[in-house]
């Protein structure tokens, strides 16, 4: 009984349940939308299935975040190694510059270059996601205390063991915070990416805005909101797991 209760009060579980209900059960809410917006001929967005839109949305935001993690992580690791130290300045400058562009602007700029479709969206999202990840990877690796590094080297860890066993686990909470920022931004920006021709949950929102159909807007927006809640709770869970060794987290 108490297990069921703790499951139901868990933000992650609850978020997932609400998300699944919204994605799969949106057609069942049609009468509700019809009653709320009696002036509308079509109170339910039916051009695409919400499940397909959600999966495409996740593929775009998740794919871009994953690529950004791999590239950004690698770049962050490289500039904190002896061989890459000289590129640190360039990377910092690029990161600072990139951070001043809002994601919508990145998207708008990438269309003339890359055309319409999911490809420019993926690239724009990846580029924007790179910045917080690179910055946090560098900050996280640099936060590893020098005595810890010296102890690791002094006991005979090679550069690989030092990185994988000591530096990355210690930097992980900071890196994760960067990934979280990137993922949250990407989740939102992926909706806007519908304007450049990517099929995402932004599509009902944009169609609804263009056609003065607030029901469409709400249908797209609540699923994005539910996704954001699940993502946030998931990152909380992961962060707690990665910082178990820290003072005051247990």
């Amino acid at each position, binding site marked *: 009984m108490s297990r069921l209760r703790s499951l139901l009060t868990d933000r992650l579980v609850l978020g997932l349940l609400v998300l699944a209900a919204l994605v799969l059960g949106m057609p069942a809410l049609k009468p509700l939308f019809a009653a709320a917006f009696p002036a509308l001929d079509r109170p339910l967005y039916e051009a695409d299935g919400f499940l397909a839109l959600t999966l495409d949305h996740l593929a775009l935001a998740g794919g871009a975040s994953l690529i950004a993690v791999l590239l950004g992580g690698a770049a962050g690791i490289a500039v904190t190694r002896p061989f890459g130290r000289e590129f640190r300045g360039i990377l910092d400058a690029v990161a600072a510059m990139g951070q001043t562009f809002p994601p919508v602007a990145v998207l708008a700029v990438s269309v003339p270059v890359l055309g319409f479709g999911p490809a420019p969206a993926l690239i724009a999202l990846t580029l924007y996601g790179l910045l917080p990840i690179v910055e946090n990877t560098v900050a996280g690796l640099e936060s590893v*205390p020098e*005595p*810890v*590094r*010296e*102890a*690791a*080297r*002094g*006991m*005979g*860890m*090679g550069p690989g*063991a030092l990185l994988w066993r*000591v530096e990355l*686990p*210690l930097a992980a909470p900071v890196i994760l915070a960067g990934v979280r920022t990137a993922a949250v931004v990407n989740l939102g920006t992926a909706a806007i990416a519908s304007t450049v021709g990517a099929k995402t949950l932004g599509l009902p929102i944009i169609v609804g805005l263009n056609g003065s159909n607030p029901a469409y807007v709400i249908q797209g927006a609540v699923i994005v909101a539910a996704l954001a809640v699940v993502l946030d709770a998931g990152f909380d869970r992961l962060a707690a797991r990665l910082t178990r*060794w*820290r*003072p005051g987290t247990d």
Partner: protein
Amino acid sequence: MIAFEGVTKRFGAWTAVDSLSLTVAAGEFRVLIGPSGSGKSTVLRMMNRLIAPDAGTIRVEGEDIARLKPETLRRRMGYVIQNIGLFPHWTVERNIAAVPDLLGWPKARVRDRVTELLALLNLDPERYRGAYPHELSGGQQQRVGVARALAAEPQILLMDEPFSALDPITRGALQAEMAGIHKATGTTVVFVTHDMDEALALASRIAVLDRGRLVQSGTPLDILTDPADDRVRDLVGREDWGLKRLAVETVAERLRPGETAPGEPLAAGASLRQALAAMVARGTDRLPVADGQGRPVGTLHLADLLRGPDRS
């Protein structure tokens, strides 16, 4: 065991170690002492190649360490760094097991070794093996640091001010444990400190450094009775020099065998300093002395205690 031959290390314009020649014999407890910035840590870090010398040769068991793979060399040496440097994301058990894990010891053997070391350093194994470093007191962290360095039974133990920043009682206890471990394992120890009392208590030989140069090298008694210059004299302290000298000799060395005296007997292994304290406390100039088993072995006279050390 370890030999420095004309070793020099510069940081920019600053010469941290200046053509240093120094040997550490196998099984020796060698203490490096000197004021802050005198190059003690730099000397230690050159022994395990964390720092490369600009000139000179360092040999370990006759081999030039510049020819050895740093990782291999380091896994043969335990290293306790000045700032402890425990891995905060690992439990006490995993911290201690770090080098055995790198060496690929079987799990069961690692576990047994961790238990053994925690017990040796007076940390209850069941209570502390799963703890994270931040859950330990400073003294407990330093114990774990020592245990970690001892874990893979190294031939050489490098210790950089391992007991600094501890209260005198904990410090004394850890010194006694360290002396016991050295006696039991026969490991060669190179121990850095800037505390002369600690050096005198632990060392079989002391090397005094100043501005990267070797000022004097010798046994604690040599350093006390025959300081090379004023810098060494300052280090041993001018006011309590006498007490320090008494602290490095045992009662057994000044004993009159066969005689008896009234009162609670003193252990033959006690220092002359402890003997003097006992005489003052009891208001007597003669103390009975007993061996480890409590059998009377003779007496100690104040006059013998005051006489200079036997240098035969």
